């Protein structure tokens, strides 16, 4: 419980991680846009490979994996702490952004490569469903409730949604194979990887992971501060009400004050 009271990492750690994320993202952009050569088959389109897979990796594995584990640890009575609830919420929120980015970069790639913005490919379809699933989680989170109630509710929602992910995945894969749909994905995505391309891709993964860690830590901090601010507002309001009552009492027993409701 002591961890739940803190606001996460110190400002300094946050700044270091944030700086590392910024530098690695900048380096990826530089290497991806200027240093690496264009691909023989895809030309400049191949540069999306430095962005799209790393973003997808963060969205589909890191973010939702972290959210599921944290939700499970919250529901587990021995490890129950608001720390896990806030961590899950932060991971989902950042994960939703990364999932949306995965879809956007995917369609940007799909249009010139396949000629369509969208294809009912298994990965695209399941990623889109995943996005809606976790938008539901965020909607549920916005419903006002006591912290413990909301935490329990959201943890259940996250786990129930998480179980759906493999089922969604298998069902759309079979749907595709039975319908002889677009098997174009990965057909021309295996360029002979040039040395600098491989390194840039690797750097892209590191950059996106750092960015994710930084954003989650920052989001966690906001979550704690928002709760503290809520408590502070409550205390101030309570204090005001008490002082009103005191003023009423000290105003003596003149009924006019009471009826106008304006003790000062």
């Amino acid at each position, binding site marked *: 419980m002591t961890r739940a009271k803190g606001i996460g990492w110190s400002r300094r750690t946050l700044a270091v991680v944030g700086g590392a994320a910024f530098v690695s993202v900048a380096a990826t952009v530089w290497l991806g846009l200027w240093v690496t050569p264009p691909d023989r088959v895809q030309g400049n389109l191949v540069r999306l490979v430095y962005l799209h897979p790393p973003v997808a990796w963060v969205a589909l594995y890191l973010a939702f994996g972290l959210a599921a584990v944290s939700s499970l640890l919250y*529901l587990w009575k021995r490890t129950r702490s608001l720390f896990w609830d806030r961590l899950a919420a932060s991971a989902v929120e950042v994960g939703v952004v990364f999932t949306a980015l995965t879809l956007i970069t995917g369609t940007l790639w799909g249009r010139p490569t396949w000629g369509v913005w969208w294809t009912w490919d298994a990965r695209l379809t399941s990623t889109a469903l995943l996005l809606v699933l976790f938008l539901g989680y965020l909607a549920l989170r916005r*419903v006002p409730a006591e912290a413990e109630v909301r935490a*329990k509710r959201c943890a259940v929602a996250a786990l129930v*949604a998480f179980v759906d992910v493999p*089922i*969604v995945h298998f069902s759309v894969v*079979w749907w595709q194979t*039975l319908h002889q749909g677009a098997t174009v994905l990965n057909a021309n995505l295996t360029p002979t990887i040039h040395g600098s391309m491989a390194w840039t891709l690797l750097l892209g993964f590191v950059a996106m992971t750092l960015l994710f860690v930084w954003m989650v830590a920052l989001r966690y901090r906001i979550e704690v501060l928002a709760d503290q601010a809520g408590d502070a507002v409550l205390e101030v309001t309570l204090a005001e009400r008490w002082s009103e009552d005191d003023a009423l009492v000290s105003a003596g027993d003149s009924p006019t004050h009471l009826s106008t409701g304006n003790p000062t």
Partner: protein
Amino acid sequence: MWRDACLVAAKDLRIELRSRVALWQVLPVAVLSLVLYAFALGPGRAALAAAAPGLFWLAVLFSTVLAVQRSFAIESGDGTRDGLRLSGIDPAGVFLGKVVAVALELAVLQVVVWAGMTVLFGVHVRTPWLAIVASVLATIGLAAAGVIYGALSAGLRVRETLLPLLVLPVLAPVLLAASRAWAGALAHGTVSSGAGWLRILGPFAVAYVVIGIVLYGPLLETG
């Protein structure tokens, strides 16, 4: 647990039998949707027959949302939820009972919608066992996942709008698998390809029944 489940299911079904909300509100909407689908797709029999399995399960899917909302609306008044909690009934029993009640309502609904579809769209089941097995598995899955989310959103002021957002993406694989299985049963596809979809419907039903049994206790406490 099973005795409790029977009690809760009997209670829910008795309320439905007496109030007839499901019968006179949910069921007509499902049948009406068939007419609306025909308006949207045009009166050509071929197009309607080809789309029939998907349309059937769409009608069932949306009715599931209504049935689940109804199932928790009858508990919102008179402190019924607290009453259930205080009565010493096993939460898993409450869950199973509500699933059984919703599943039976959906089963009746499917029979009626199917009859309507046979008349309006002119389609026939060629492989009854496949249609029935797919229906039973899909219905259990729909009811179980629906009741979990119903409990999750019960008592919230935004429940009417929140429930579809939460539950429809989760139920998407059921819509997909059940439609494909029925396409096989209606001989739009092959029977073997239709039967393959039972491998999605079965695990989905099992997964959500198990999750509901485990998590319904904590869920009831959040109401």
